[in-house]
């Protein structure tokens, strides 16, 4: 599935672009076609935007575009995680965590969607760190 030049940075955007000509494209267009409408509630998007203290005001168009971009982002994240996962019947948290932690462009999500680690392994890593400090 993953055919990317090793030097070109993220598979996330790379794969999206190569997919552009196929079925996803038409779906993309279909979603964009009912005028400029977005499915996400813009009032909520605005609330989130305004929760950032340095933001003073947002034009109607900017709000609209941010809402749309978020919609595209959800689609892209879900689609890419699904494509990267081995399980084709379900989308799991671990698929998302894997994508978020391996893609450069998704670095801003590292703290939000961390890889899960077993308590046992975590404690072991702590012990190992202690041990190496003592030495």
């Amino acid at each position, binding site marked *: 599935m993953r055919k990317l030049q090793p030097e070109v940075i993220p598979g996330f955007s790379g794969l999206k672009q190569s997919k552009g000509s196929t079925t996803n494209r038409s779906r993309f*267009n279909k979603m964009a076609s009912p005028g400029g409408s977005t499915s996400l509630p813009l009032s909520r*998007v605005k*609330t989130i935007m305004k929760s950032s203290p340095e933001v003073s005001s947002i034009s109607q168009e900017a709000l609209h575009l941010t809402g749309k971009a978020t919609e*595209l*982002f959800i689609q892209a994240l*879900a689609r890419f995680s699904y494509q990267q996962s081995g399980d084709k019947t*379900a989308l799991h948290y671990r698929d998302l965590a894997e994508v978020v932690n391996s893609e450069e*462009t998704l670095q*801003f999500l590292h703290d939000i969607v961390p890889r899960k680690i077993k308590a046992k392994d975590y404690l072991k890593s702590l012990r190992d760190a202690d041990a190496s400090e003592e030495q």
Partner: protein
Amino acid sequence: MAERPEDLNLPNAVVTRIIKDAIPEGVNVSKEARLAISKAASVFVLYATSCSNNFAMKGKRKTINAQDVLCAMEDMEFEQFIEPLQQCQEAFKQEKLDKKKEKATKPAPSAQVEEENDDVLELSEGESGEGKQSTSLVSAGNNSTVNEVDNDSSESSVEMIEDGGD
């Protein structure tokens, strides 16, 4: 503005629907995965806002505009979103225009004329199919109802439409 922390989450139902549209039918999305995507989307909004705001500040503006958002996408390395966003922006503008047209034609519903219809049709040439459909509907309705010419009202409404175009 956000009094409760839930106010910063996007509605679950909508997010779920967008996810379902993006992946093949019948694929199960675990609750945890859904929650993670939803949170990621909220953070995406904040990240995009912060980047857009930087561009607005660089331009010494207080209001974030559409161009700032597009620049932010590039900055965030989501270039693949720019093209669909521009399309969306066009559609948004078009919708606004259509609404203005509706408003412009409403004030004199009984005094609409064939002359006016011609102008409106000319203006909407080359626009989306939606626009054409609505204008043709308007013209059909008018042809059947009105014969009398009222130059004043038709001119003023056309001017309003042109203003909206700019």
